[in-house]
């Protein structure tokens, strides 16, 4: 189980972070994912790759978390301030964080299905067939969601460029 954790913790964390979970709650959701993985591992039949299987659990855990958060009417609260940039390396990190934040905000404009496809294909660089398997949808559906997600994200980013 440790090997599985080590091999997948980064991917799970990244997925959770980009699927709309507040930063402060990412560790909790990741914990829930790995507890579920541990609990269900004996029933893993190998019909998909282990990676797809874990992503599937991650998706469902995040969806359940979002529903719970919505019922509690939770809104993302202000994140703690970042430390002031100190040197070019730190500055580079701050810029990278800003870019990530911009992308996260844009992803918030997508529906859950489009967002999932976009995150798996564009950020995790999964193959489209694997995306479809993970999300349990026909591959054509995955393609059309990707298409719609790209259009939406581009519109949002284009709109942010000033007028």
């Amino acid at each position, binding site marked *: *189980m440790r090997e599985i*954790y080590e091999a997948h913790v*980064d991917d799970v*964390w*990244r997925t959770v972070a*980009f699927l709309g979970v507040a930063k*402060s709650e990412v*560790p909790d959701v990741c*914990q*829930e994912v*790995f*507890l*579920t993985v*541990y*609990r269900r591992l004996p029933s893993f039949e190998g019909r998909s790759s282990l990676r797809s299987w874990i992503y599937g659990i991650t*998706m469902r*855990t995040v*969806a*359940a978390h979002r*529903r*719970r958060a919505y*019922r509690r009417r939770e*809104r*993302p*609260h*202000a994140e703690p301030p*970042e430390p002031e940039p100190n040197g070019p390396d730190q500055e580079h990190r701050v810029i*990278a964080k*800003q*870019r990530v934040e*911009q*992308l996260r*905000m844009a992803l*918030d*404009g*997508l*529906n859950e*299905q489009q967002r999932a496809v976009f995150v798996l294909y*564009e950020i*995790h*660089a999964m193959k*489209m067939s694997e995306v479809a398997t993970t999300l*349990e*949808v026909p591959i054509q*559906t995955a393609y*059309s*969601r*990707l*298409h*719609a*997600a*790209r*259009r939406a*994200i*581009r*519109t949002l*980013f*284009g709109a942010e460029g*000033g*007028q």
Partner: protein
Amino acid sequence: MNEPKRLAEFDDALAGEIRAAREVGPTEEERAKLAATLPFLAPPPGGPGGSTGSSAPGPTGAAPAAAGNTSGLGLLKAAAVVLTLGAPAAWLLQGESAPASASTAQTVVEAALESRASESVPSETTASRSVVESPTSEAPDIASPRSEAESHESDAEPVEVFISDERQIPAPSARAPRARRSSTEHAEGPITPRVGRTARHAEVAAGVEQDEVEEPPSADTTYEEPSPIADESELALVASARRRLRTQPARSLALANRHRERFGNGAFAQEREVLAIEALARLDRRDEAERRAERFSRQWPRSVHGARISAILQR
């Protein structure tokens, strides 16, 4: 079927963001804290992070560092603590045959998970029943960022609280079928005055911008109360405010305020504030614009929108 090229490989506007996103992951500290909450990952004696020895692995060992900024994980975390305390040799769970204490421990985890995982089941069913969308569909389904189920629950913010005006657009119910909504998504979706011709023509063809055509910008300076819009999702409100910024700044401001009222520090809070500041500036309400800009810079001191706001105020 050939895989489409990924945006990170060719899209200048997005490649940087996506590459940065690919670097996101837990820090070493976050990784260690997470591992400490997973009973089956209790470090073996002498292993990484095992400086406290094998007597008290897991959350109790990490508590001094973790307690400060974690709010607790409720039932699951409690289960993890029970597990760790009740099974000091929980790392043995990695083995094929779990000891009796581990079985008990697993039961606790399962009991904890059942209450939460039960909510996952509908999502699986939903996924398997999901509508097959046409790959050639040109209507992006982006104006409803919340799931349908969530939309149903959003009835606490009724559309009817608006004081309608002569430009009232009939508001479809949240349960309106997709086909019915598709035209209104164009009306209130994230389409800016900068969109391409085709989209613009589609909007005009759908007759959704008649209000903007009929009303000259000068008539808008005192307008405060937004009329209902078809889709009150967060994105739709901001997009609608953006579209009206030039021609109807007061309406744009009202929509931005409406967004603030409903979504507070939501996903597009910064964009909303920029829009409101620009609308105020266009309405010659410069004092208010400057006050709002000050609040913005206090709240988001390093926002990428800072330069834009400065430019607006210097006009």
